[in-house]
């Protein structure tokens, strides 16, 4: 009827015995370190920032796992990092402090950084002692990232950077921000962009909180006024910022954080409603959601395995993220329809608090890390007849 085309490729993969043993270790660690009922679990990567917990993960070698051992990394694989993050997220562990550094800043410094930069930053990232923020979005540049206006001009020994970054998660407690800015003029919008490593404590950096709609304060505006950035803190090549950022975004998409944000809501539903009439009515939802989680996990795992075998699954990542984040939201709507209660963020019931948090923060799932619309566009470009 039609000839097979070179579309997105997802090869099924299984965990090896070594990988399964790692999973057991993480499960044992979490059961001992964060027993149910003794901590405030969060929804996926929205969980609280807890630097002490991040350091404990670092001590166990579970941060920067895929980075080289000579920089403090684990010389391990993307799949092994997948296993650790999957277990942490589904447990609701406080991962926010190290999240960005572990997921993307570390890999991007390892890929594009100088030897000096790698020695300077990667050990701290792997130890859970250095927090990073993402300096991409600006007030007038969101999905259209190439419209950024932050600009660095050449000065003696480095660059002087001015501009405003926005929606910057964790900038108030992090140490560094990898900032995309203009370093040259070009008729081509994607040219003349560069990435700079900016110390969030440097002179000229002001961090203003932007309270989230639920009152939480992980979001910030970062105003950069004539901030001096030494030549040593240029990441990669001047003028290559667009290509580097595109590659960074691939680390941001397609992982367990894109389908586990509302897992805990369902697990906690089971804890509180099993055996009740409401629990009985949940059967359709549970069967459907568990099936989809299972399949999404297999697709997502296949993306990680592909990275380990030298693939560049950027289209596959975008395809998974688009579908997975929609599913995360569908879960909230389905659970909400099921229970006859007015969720209070102050409820004594953990389920109810998680539901309140999910309803309030759910819309962000399909916006952060690339909106649905952008992801569809990225995916469609990779689908060729």
């Amino acid at each position, binding site marked *: 009827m039609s000839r097979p*085309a070179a579309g997105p490729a997802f090869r099924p993969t299984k965990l090896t015995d070594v990988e399964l043993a790692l999973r057991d270790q993480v499960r044992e660690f979490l059961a001992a370190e964060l027993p149910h009922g003794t901590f405030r679990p969060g929804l996926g990567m929205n969980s609280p920032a807890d630097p002490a917990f991040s350091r404990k993960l670092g001590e166990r070698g579970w941060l920067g796992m895929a980075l080289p051992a000579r920089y403090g990394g684990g010389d391990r694989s993307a799949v092994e990092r997948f296993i650790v993050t999957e277990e942490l997220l589904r447990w609701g562990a406080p991962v926010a402090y190290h999240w960005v550094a572990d997921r993307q800043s570390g890999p991007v410094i390892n890929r594009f950084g100088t030897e000096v930069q790698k020695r300077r930053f990667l050990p701290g990232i792997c130890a859970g002692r250095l927090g990073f923020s993402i300096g991409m979005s600006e007030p007038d540049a969101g999905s259209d990232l190439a419209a950024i206006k932050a600009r660095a001009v050449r000065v003696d020994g480095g660059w002087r950077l001015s501009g405003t970054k926005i929606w910057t998660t964790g900038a108030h407690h992090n140490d560094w921000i990898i900032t995309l800015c203009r370093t040259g003029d070009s008729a081509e919008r994607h040219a003349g962009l560069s990435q700079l490593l900016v110390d969030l404590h440097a002179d000229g950096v002001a961090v203003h909180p932007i309270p989230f709609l639920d009152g939480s304060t992980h979001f910030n505006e970062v105003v950069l006024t004539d901030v001096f950035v030494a030549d040593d803190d240029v990441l990669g090549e001047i003028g290559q910022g667009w290509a580097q950022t595109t590659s960074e975004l691939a680390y941001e998409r397609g992982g367990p954080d894109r389908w586990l944000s509302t897992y805990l809501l369902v*697990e*906690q539903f089971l804890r509180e409603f099993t055996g009740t009439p409401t629990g009985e009515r949940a*059967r359709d939802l549970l*069967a459907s959601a568990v099936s989809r989680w299972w399949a999404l996990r*297999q*697709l997502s795992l296949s993306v990680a395995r592909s990275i380990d075998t030298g693939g560049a699954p950027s289209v596959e990542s975008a395809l998974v993220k*688009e579908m997975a984040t929609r599913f995360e939201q569908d879960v909230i709507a389905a659970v909400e329809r099921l229970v006859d209660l007015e969720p209070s963020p102050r409820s004594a019931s953990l389920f109810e608090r998680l539901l309140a948090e999910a309803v309030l923060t759910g819309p962000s799932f399909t916006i952060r890390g690339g909106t649905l619309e952008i992801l569809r*566009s990225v*995916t469609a470009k990779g689908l060729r007849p």
Partner: protein
Amino acid sequence: MIDYPGVDPVLLETADRLFAACCDNRQLLAAEEAGWAKDLWERAAEMGLPWISVPEDRGGSGGGLPEALAVLRVAGRHGAPIPLAETGVLAGWLLAGAGLSVDPASPLTVVPGRDGDTLRLDGGPGPDARLTGTAHRVPWARAAARIVALVGSDDGWQVVAVPTADVGVRVEPDVNLAGEPRDTVHLDGVEPAVLAPAAAGVDPDALVRRGALARVMTMAGALEAMSELTLAYAHQRRQFGRPVATFQAVQQHLVVVAQEAAVVTMAATVAATATARADERAGGGGGSSSSGRDGAFEVAAAKLLANQAAHTATRAAHQAHGAIGMTQEYPLHQLSRRLWSWRKEYGDDRYWTVRLGPLIDAAGADGLYPLIAGG
């Protein structure tokens, strides 16, 4: 390039060439009229395709379940109108498991076991055994040489085969939404050609599970072909001076079809691997218990996802095509009508939701994630 983990690509390319040559839209419409594609069957039989996964000492072509299912996925791409799944993966599995043999020339079919079926075995499972009653929705019965069924007896489940040529057999033609034969079979005191106790663990639930696995894999192939067809059309069709594939609103449909194809292909393949592993543990050819990681969860989840995809993907594919997709002259309907039919066969959404319930209950809150993550 069609690939399937662990399966020789030459086998799949050969099968693909055969189906491509015999299953264009015109040929499929002719087969719908005729009831099946006899010429395609003969060529597939020459290559031994229908009997893959049936042991050679039982008259089969040998090979494993993954090979057989990979060929079904290729057949699903083309809508091959022959009893491929029924002959080997289902009838061959039942017969070989019961120590019986297949006849390596004749198409077989299997009674799926629908509510309202009245098949019964009179005279006990011995020489006096006679089959009487009605079986509904029997795929390709009018084309099959023998109808294989699983019937209850005082001595447990029995595998029986009756020749359709027997005077006591009446086949009343019926069809599914794709015009594939789903006949009603009336049996009146028919003496089985063969009869033997089913393999341990093989019961009607196990048969539905195996049938669901076969359909899921075929649906995966149909969804992949649907994605490719829709993509090709959207890049070729121009409106407002440019290919419709360049409009964001249309791209959304293309992405949805590709996603559903990816989900179902992945689910089908993982379910197939789990089932093949359980078969090996059971000593080959046997059924598997409903506890533990024996493929029960994987097949149930995969069929539920495939059923849902049949809805989501066909809607998006038809929307992307516009009016041409609603015509008989354009091949989209060969895929969409099959997906709409197959989602109701071997377990609809309700059936698999009910089967998943106890597995989720048994897992409980602490076991929920291990269920999702396979341990």
